């Protein structure tokens, strides 16, 4: 376990630096806001399912790097969520929040004109909480974790109704990581006093199968602004220390994308290479 943490801590700054290698690449910045349904379970707080809504914010940067003959792209994803959900009888409420960051590297293929396939890996970290309005000595649950993920993406550009559109599908799945979890009946009072044995757990798809999927379409609204709309399916699950947790959300996302390119004084063209 200590080795896993050490490796992740070692990798994180290194891979972040790797993403800085291409100084003159074209990059796209996207900011999206989403609203959707939220489905929560955390048996540390309650064995009941909670349903409600979730608000999501997604900030994304995508650009090519100079790695592997400019075939490796770098994507950074910031995601923040806030959820509000009630139990079936309407007698209790869960409030949840989460913020996460993923740095992703994809190898790019272009098998067809307009089609880009990407596969790679990511390193990410996230933190969050879930608060139950009726808890006594177990009123809230904290979340903290870091993981290495596999990621695939497909982008297809097409022309429809006189518009250049871009369809995109992306899926990220954590493969290995570490996460915080109290033990089955352990109180945060005890954790706060420094008794933290067993609170850092090794996570893998067998005990924490999670999947992040996004399907979007980019629609140009002008020369430099592109609207992006889509569907985000964020499934986070874990079953560690006897505590079952799932946080499943399905959101409709909408936002804007802007493409940037470092240009010289005489060079004013900015072509959107990545869509």
């Amino acid at each position, binding site marked *: 376990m200590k080795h896993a943490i050490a490796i992740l801590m070692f990798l994180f700054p290194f891979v972040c630096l790797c993403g800085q290698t291409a100084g003159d690449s074209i990059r796209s910045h996207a900011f999206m806001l989403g609203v959707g349904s939220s489905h929560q379970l955390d048996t540390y707080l309650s064995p009941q399912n909670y349903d409600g809504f979730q608000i999501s914010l997604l900030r994304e940067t995508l650009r090519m790097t100079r790695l592997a003959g400019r075939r490796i792209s770098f994507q950074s994803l910031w995601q923040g969520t806030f959820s509000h959900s009630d139990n079936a009888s309407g007698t209790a409420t869960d409030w949840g929040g989460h913020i996460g960051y993923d740095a992703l590297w994809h190898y790019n293929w272009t098998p067809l004109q307009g089609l880009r396939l990407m596969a790679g890996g990511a390193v990410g970290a996230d933190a969050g909480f879930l608060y139950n309005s009726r808890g006594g000595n177990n009123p809230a649950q904290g979340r903290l974790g870091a993981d290495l993920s596999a990621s695939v993406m497909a982008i297809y550009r097409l022309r429809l109704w006189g518009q250049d559109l871009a369809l995109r599908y992306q899926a990220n799945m954590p493969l290995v990581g570490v996460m915080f979890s109290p033990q089955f009946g352990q109180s945060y*009072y005890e954790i706060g006093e420094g008794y933290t044995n067993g609170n850092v757990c090794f996570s893998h798809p067998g005990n924490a*199968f999670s999947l992040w999927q996004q399907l979007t379409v980019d629609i140009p609204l002008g020369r430099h602004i592109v609207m992006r709309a889509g569907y985000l399916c964020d499934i986070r699950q874990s079953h560690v220390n006897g505590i079952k947790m799932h946080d499943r959300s399905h959101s409709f996302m909408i936002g804007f994308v802007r493409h940037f390119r470092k240009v010289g004084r005489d060079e004013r063209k900015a072509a959107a290479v990545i869509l």
Partner: protein
Amino acid sequence: MKNMFLRTRTTGIKAGFPASHFLCPSKIGGRAKRRGDVLTVFRFPFSVRDVFRFDFVESASARHNQSGLCFCSRLLAAFRFPFSVFRLIILFSTLTLASCVDEVQFDNTPEGNMEALWKIIDEHYCFLDYKAEAIGLDWDEVHARYRGKLDKNMSSAQLQEVLCNMLAELRDGHVNLYTASDVGRYWAWKEDYPSNLNDEIRESYLGTDYRIASGLYYRILDDNVGYIVYKSFSSAIGEGNIAEVLHHLRLCSGLIIDVRGNGGGQLDYAQRLASHFTNERILTGYRSHKTGTGHSDFSDLTPEYLEPSTTVRWQKPAIVLTNRGCYSATNTFVRDMLCCLNVRTLGDSTGGGSGMPFTSELPNGWLVRFSACPQYDREKRHIEFGIAPTIPCELKAEDVAKGEDTLIETARKLLAR
């Protein structure tokens, strides 16, 4: 478009690729085979490394050649190797469905609620093993017995009564069932015993000129004994409050701390107050928590220490007055105080309540509270059913008739010696 092999002028894929094997199993082992516009190279046997090592070659002529094909065939042709991407997506979806982390959801019926409650206690309650030994509790037998008392058409009040009676089998004051109309409880731990407390007489000892430091009521009695009443550990006290109180009482010959009827509250306040009665770090007990659903799944015992306060510390004799109403955090306070030098307890046994309570809920929304993390004394014994006093003492009726509190008077005599 013919005789195209490795990395020729057209679009090509160089890899050993199982998806292609599925598409054309008869060609496995061949050198190369063109499909439509795509050159697929088979190598057999392929290694796992080959599966992920593919290279894509694209040229102007390839794009030209593709232009005559329909979109679907171009897409399919181009996706010979990325076919695995789709398979991965399907795999992801399948895994997602197959890997759902869910908890059993009981119906909102009398049976469903009873089963949910029984399961919560069965998996989370921390004294099932201890009470099986101490009071003969058989939780499976309780399930069978109360299951027979359910009826599909029973009212909410009737269901509440059945469930509360089931919980009362645990004989635990920390176990409650909260509904919109009532709080199900087990209070026999104090109601079945003499209270050894008369509030009016206690008030008379405080008089009218007593001082109040947050939750601490205190004064100096006529025989120069300090007297502190702390009615609830839910009332916040800080280091400053305690230091001021002890400083005010510094010239007293002894100190009486009356926590009778104190049903508990914050453990922090209990430890904070006790920390003013020791000059060194002392072991006061142990704590553990459940690590799984089994009745015996507990963590190793974690020692609990009392750290001496860095402000005023009491160096003279002190007596803590207790009765059956001392519960939960007060029980822990008494445990800690008994580990301090110069401190004795006088009165009746405490009520107990050594399990830190957690909460959960039923399908109908009712809230259930239960003991989850047990505490022990420094000899690793359970203190769930209370702590015996150092000096047993009862409130006598003749003293009450005279307006005197037997416990306070006894403590004053002991401190005067």
